[in-house]
């Protein structure tokens, strides 16, 4: 009953093509946006901003990028972090070498650079499929990070490729405080998420999904594989590049190429698998899950230490966290292989009928 859509008639084409056709969804999104924009800045502590909310949003953006490629276009990639690294280092160089470069333009341009490189590494996807492709994307991961570390020009000849992000200033306002950084990230992420949501229900998005479901069949019905796959690689890399730039500028501050290692790629892949492959909402849910899990686990360990007085050494707790992380991922995959987004769908079905069982 709560989620009943009966009686909501679509009387115009605009209403028919709305992103959220159901009123309850619109209310829900409005509530979330109000919470994120108006309530959070006043409630959250600096720790929550810097340790949870900002990385959560940035990694959501990267997860959206990967989801476009893997979830919508069906091309498995293990090189997400490398494209994030390109975004970060491209922004750094734009800011460093172009005088008076506005930071937002630098972010967008670095996304563009990342998209170009993404297209180059997407070219093999026209011939290679499945796990073979996944392993070749590892080539991107290792090669790009190696390039950034070895070629001094990218990091302005600093030792071992460490860069320190320039100050983020927009129209004279310096984004230094955690709240302001969070809000800037929030604005960028919500705009890009909106764009992604619209993109995947456009002509391009539908052709991606056709390629994902069966590329030969998609080709037969007249979808050109090369543009479809390459746009997916380009747009995915754009999102990852912007996320990487935000990661460096608004979260880490000082960053080396090794920060964008295979572990980060895997973490983002986990996000979309746990959140839900082929779902923008899933990218956010998965990112929240993976960002909160270590925090939660360390809280549990701290709780155990204080209450039960388990004499746990630092090494043991970190290994326990690793094990719990692995075990929880396996558990989630077994219980809900389609991810948290699927759980939300099931919940919606239940709410539609509530309080009746069927």
């Amino acid at each position, binding site marked *: 009953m709560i989620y009943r859509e009966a009686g909501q008639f679509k009387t115009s084409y605009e209403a028919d093509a709305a992103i959220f056709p159901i009123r309850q969804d619109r209310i829900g999104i409005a509530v979330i946006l109000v919470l994120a924009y108006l309530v959070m800045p006043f409630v959250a502590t600096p720790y929550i901003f810097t340790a949870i909310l900002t990385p959560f949003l940035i990694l959501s953006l990267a997860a959206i990028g990967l989801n476009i490629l893997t979830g919508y276009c069906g091309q498995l990639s293990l090189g997400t972090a490398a494209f994030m690294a390109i975004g970060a280092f491209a922004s750094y160089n734009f800011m460093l070498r172009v005088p008076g470069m506005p930071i937002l333009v630098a972010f967008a341009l670095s996304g563009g650079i990342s998209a170009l490189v993404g297209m180059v590494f997407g070219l093999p996807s026209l*011939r*290679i499929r499945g796990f073979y492709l996944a392993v070749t994307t590892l*080539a991107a991961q290792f090669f790009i990070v190696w390039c950034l570390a070895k070629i001094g020009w990218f990091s302005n000849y600093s030792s071992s490729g460490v860069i320190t992000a320039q100050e983020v200033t927009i129209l004279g306002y310096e984004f230094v405080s955690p709240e302001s950084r969070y809000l800037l990230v929030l604005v960028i992420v919500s705009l890009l998420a909106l764009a992604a949501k619209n993109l995947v229900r456009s002509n391009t998005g539908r052709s991606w999904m056709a390629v994902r479901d069966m590329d*030969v069949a998609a080709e037969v019905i007249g979808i050109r594989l090369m543009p479809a796959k390459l746009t997916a690689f380009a747009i995915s890399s754009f999102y990852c590049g912007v996320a990487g730039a935000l990661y460096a500028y608004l979260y880490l501050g000082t960053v080396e190429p090794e920060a964008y290692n295979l572990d980060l790629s895997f973490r983002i*892949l986990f996000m979309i698998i746990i959140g839900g492959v082929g779902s923008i909402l899933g990218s956010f849910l998965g990112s929240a899950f993976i960002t909160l899990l270590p925090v939660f686990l360390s809280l549990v360990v701290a709780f155990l230490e204080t209450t039960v007085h388990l004499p746990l050494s630092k090494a043991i707790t970190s290994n326990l*966290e690793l*094990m719990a992380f692995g075990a929880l991922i396996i558990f989630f*995959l077994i219980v809900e292989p389609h991810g948290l987004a699927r759980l939300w769908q099931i919940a919606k079905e239940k709410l539609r009928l509530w309080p009746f069982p069927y």
Partner: protein
Amino acid sequence: MSFFLEVLIGGLLSGVMYSLVALGFVLIYKASGVLNFAQGGMVFFAALTYVGLLEFDLSPWLAIPITLVVMVILGLLTERIVLRPLVNQPQITLFMATIGLAFFVEGLAQMMWGANVRALDLGLQDEPIAWVSDHLNMMISKFDLTAAGVAALLVTGLALFFSRTRIGRALRAVADDHQAALAVGIPLQQIWGIVWGVAGFLALVAGLLWGARNGVQFALTFVALKALPVLILGGFESVPGAIVGGLIIGATEKLAEVYFGPLVGGGIEGWFPYMLALVFLLVRPEGIFGEKIIRRI
């Protein structure tokens, strides 16, 4: 010329070591369609367990069987707890599950035995063979040669096992088509159990050899990453592919590092195998020995 040959042979021998890890992947991929990322973790686990047991003053002849039992149990448990509930899921889900498993196994190994780097002594010296260095003026490590011998023995054994025994035939049937194999009465779960057990055994051998060579440390898990380009070069489903792929990757990697590496500042071993595999796959997308991909609508 002799320097070139020395590098080449050194590369080929280390390539055999890659093949050893790749074999574990191939075995499981063939039988259950899972790209088992946790193989690296299992290699680490095996090496660490062996070294840990030696620290209790066990003789190696006792420690190896015990580790073997532990590894087989680990393999069987993996099949039972992780993969059986995930049967018939998309491959990527299975792959992610094995990454989760890799975290778990690595954490477990370090929690049980500690994370400090240890030496593993198999009684083999990593020194050049005197005869070869005297007569041919080449440095060829005794250890590498023995390791290659062990790998060759294993591969022959596995090839015979696959082609001559009843279980091997059943295994190939399962690899071909799960449902058809089930229909003619092959106990699917028993076969999967065997495969995971054998994968545990392969992890043990790889763990001992790699551990003896590089020391038992967390970096052993990265061996699995080195095995991936070997796999795609050779083809996921092919045992000979794993060997040939390993040899190619080992040889070209060393040659590239020696001749090409200094020009670009070194450290190209990390990505060169992948690039090589990528370029190769552009020509032949299913690897050298992989099954020809036929796509139907």
